[in-house]
């Protein structure tokens, strides 16, 4: 049976290895799509609607087409069609400079017949509201219902109940590198695309189909990319438009979204509103859970969220609906549905615990069937100093009050088949690992190098990792669902093992030993039964002559495992005069399976926590109900965590087994509940609506007073 071996035998796997691309990134040498400039390149721009709902009655491109420096103008919507949200695409231009392209957008004449719209969920659900979908009732999809057990019987058993409404707003992805492509036709039938994407082969296949090209004639390159978080799987309107502008002009075209467009059209995490009633028995067992909830994914649907979450409840009734509004559509965003649901559930757990007079951590222990999380509760509580928590919420003295909270999460991340990879050993001793995956910044490039270097007794710098490129024809799946490492790592591992075996076959005659008696040392190959028989790596590969060993691998499911648990503890300080919440420390205990690279795994955890902090304290898409426009489609008014907001984060890589799991998403889940509960523990007032901004804190304190 394949295995990653014992931890004590690992030279590199599980250690803290600096990421291979780190130096390139911090020195600016790394080329992102945004940095790609091709000879003769034109600049693409898209004209977008500033109104949220309208019928297009006329588009006249003439003036723009006649402007000096403009090389192509194309409509992206026909007269008679509907605009459904601010930011929707109307027309596109390609020009010699970006400034000319911007000027050309202003020269496009568009006539719209504005229509009534709904910008907020409250407006959308109001009686007589304008309808986004003709076949929805009151802008709400048909309810999705679920449940188990007997909820009424459960409540009859309950000693305490809590009824509350929890809300999280729409959050945008805020990829630091906006969506975009640089596109170049090398001839009429061959397209090269530099794409900021999570799915090199997804973009290749989608563009090929849309442009009616054979898939192998679309070459997609993603050497480095600046964040996707679930929003960058397809080429999008901007990618297809860039390809068409390039075809029209026979020139390369760069088309990157503006920051404003990134907020408006490039996806978002849907909102969530949960009305929950839950009950627990006197001995602290969750017994009944009844939830009605809704959220908005903009014009489309898909506003999913979890509930109940993580903790065991025997009697459940749930009802969820999507609410349509005239705003840009949602896309998958880091652990879709989980952070919202975890915030609601962990807040609810604390509210029930308080009614029972129980420590919320003990209440969780009683209702959490995960053995992993039970151990994590102990470890995390020790690390944060849980004993220092206020036994009575808000009982601290002084203007600045401190509190602690806990939250939990669960994720899959077990990977899947269909990654193809090759590991090559050349006669000069060089080693290449090639696959079509892409590095979103998570560190898969380094993880691949670690696996191969471990197998061959080399260093990570000895391994040439070729990823983010469709040209070698080795497809790999998109990076989503925390699936990349558990999908790629087993294939690389088996490919390297196969290549090693081939090399051993060349070396065995020289060492006069059977192949199965050969072992890898540090830069050497030796005979296990006679350690005096040794060759260096270079001597061994020199035996290949003109031959190159090139081996593929298999996705061995024994090398990976899904299902990761996590828990986080937060300590906060709330200024009761300003309402400002300062996070002092987050302890994030994250089940990771086998962490190929402990350093980048910790980075994953840090990143998830930071994103969770943003969702808890700062981020919210604010829609103007009067105009239907987003009021904070920038990075000045749409706040994401900066150095002032990021506290001490203690990532604890919680080793559970020697199989690879994905951790891209899970660390952002427990943060929300942990912070919200810590705020309550500090000030004794529950804030059930995110983000927890100073105005909400002050209002809550005023109401309490």
């Amino acid at each position, binding site marked *: 049976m394949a295995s990653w071996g014992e931890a004590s035998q690992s030279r590199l796997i599980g250690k803290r290895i600096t990421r291979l691309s780190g130096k390139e990134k911090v020195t600016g040498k790394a080329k992102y799509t945004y940095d790609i400039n091709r000879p003769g390149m034109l600049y693409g721009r898209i004209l977008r609607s500033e109104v949220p709902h309208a019928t297009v009655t006329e588009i006249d491109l003439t003036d723009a087409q006649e402007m000096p420096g403009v090389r192509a103008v194309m409509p992206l919507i026909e007269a008679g*069609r*509907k605009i*459904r949200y601010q930011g929707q695409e109307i027309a596109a231009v390609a020009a010699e400079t970006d400034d000319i392209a911007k000027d050309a957008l202003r020269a496009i004449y568009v006539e719209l017949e504005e229509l009534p719209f709904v910008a907020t969920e409250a407006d959308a659900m109001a009686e007589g509201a304008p309808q986004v*979908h003709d076949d929805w009732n009151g802008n709400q*999809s*048909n309810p*999705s219902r679920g449940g188990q057990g007997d909820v009424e019987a459960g409540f009859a058993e309950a000693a305490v109940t809590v009824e509350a409404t929890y809300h999280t707003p729409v959050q945008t992805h805020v990829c630091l590198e906006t969506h975009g492509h640089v596109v170049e036709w090398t001839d009429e039938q061959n397209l090269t695309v530099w794409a900021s994407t*999570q*799915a090199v082969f*997804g973009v290749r296949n*989608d563009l090929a*189909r*849309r442009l009616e090209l054979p898939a192998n004639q679309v070459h997609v390159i993603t050497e480095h990319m600046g964040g996707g978080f*679930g929003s960058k*799987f*397809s*080429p*999008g*309107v901007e*990618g*297809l438009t860039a390809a068409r502008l390039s075809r029209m002009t026979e020139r390369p075209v760069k088309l990157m979204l503006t920051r404003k467009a990134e907020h408006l059209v490039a*996806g978002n995490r849907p909102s969530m509103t949960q009305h929950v009633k839950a009950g627990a028995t006197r001995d602290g067992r969750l017994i009944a859970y009844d939830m009605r909830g809704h959220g908005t*994914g903009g*014009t*489309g*649907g*898909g*506003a*999913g*969220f979890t509930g109940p979450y993580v903790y065991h409840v025997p009697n459940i009734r749930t009802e*969820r609906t*999507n609410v349509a509004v005239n705003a840009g*559509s*949602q*896309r*998958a965003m880091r652990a*879709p*549905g989980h952070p919202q649901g975890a915030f609601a559930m962990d807040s609810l757990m604390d509210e029930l615990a308080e009614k029972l007079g129980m420590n919320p951590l003990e209440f969780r222990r009683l209702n959490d069937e995960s053995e992993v999380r039970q151990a994590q509760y102990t470890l995390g509580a020790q690390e944060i100093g849980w004993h220092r928590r206020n036994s009575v919420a808000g009982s601290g003295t002084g203007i600045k009050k401190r509190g602690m909270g806990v939250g939990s999460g669960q994720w899959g991340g*077990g*990977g*899947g*088949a*269909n*990654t193809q990879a090759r590991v090559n050993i050349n006669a000069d001793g060089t080693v290449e690992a090639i696959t079509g995956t892409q590095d979103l910044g998570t560190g898969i490039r380094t993880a691949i190098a670690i696996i191969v270097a471990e197998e061959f007794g080399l260093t990570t710098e000895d391994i040439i990792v070729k990823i983010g490129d469709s040209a070698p024809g080795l497809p*790999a*799946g*998109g*990076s*989503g*669902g925390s*699936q*990349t490492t558990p*999908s790629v790592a087993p294939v690389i591992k088996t490919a390297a093992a196969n290549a090693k075996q081939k090399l051993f076959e060349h070396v065995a005659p020289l060492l006069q030993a059977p192949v199965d008696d050969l072992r890898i040392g540090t830069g050497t190959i030796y005979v296990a039964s006679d350690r005096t028989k040794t060759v260096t790596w270079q001597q061994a590969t020199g035996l290949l002559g003109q031959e190159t060993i090139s081996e593929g691998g298999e996705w061995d499911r024994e090398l990976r495992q899904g299902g990761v648990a996590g828990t986080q503890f937060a300590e906060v300080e709330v200024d009761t005069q300003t309402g400002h919440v300062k996070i002092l420390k987050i302890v994030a205990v994250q089940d990771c399976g086998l962490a190929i690279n402990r350093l980048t795994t910790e980075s994953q955890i840090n990143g998830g926590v930071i994103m969770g902090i943003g969702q808890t304290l700062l981020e919210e898409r604010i829609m103007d109900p009067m105009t239907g426009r987003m009021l904070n489609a920038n990075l000045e008014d749409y706040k994401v965590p900066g150095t002032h907001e990021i506290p001490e984060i203690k990532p604890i890589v919680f080793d559970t087994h020697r199989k690879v799991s994905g951790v891209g998403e899970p660390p952002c889940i427990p943060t929300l509940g942990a912070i919200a509960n810590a705020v309550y523990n500090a000030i004794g007032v529950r804030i059930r609506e995110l983000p927890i901004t100073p105005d909400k804190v002050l209002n809550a304190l005023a109401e309490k007073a």
Partner: protein
Amino acid sequence: MLDGKTLPIFKRPICQNLRTKALYIPGGNLQNLVKENPGTHYWCNCTMQVVGPDDDFVSPNACKQSRSCFDPIGGKPVV
């Protein structure tokens, strides 16, 4: 092109332009387009938006053969 009316694994034809995230990631496949998941996002590869070329919304339930833009996986049925 298939000579049957539908792919054997599906109870009804699926439009090859319908997209959802699960299609792109390891472990996902076309089965993710068979049953509508109200908690996920769908889009059209023709428009790259949540509406199809006919300006109606897309989803497994909405993308039916009766739509003018419907383009089944495996090609149009052979009569």
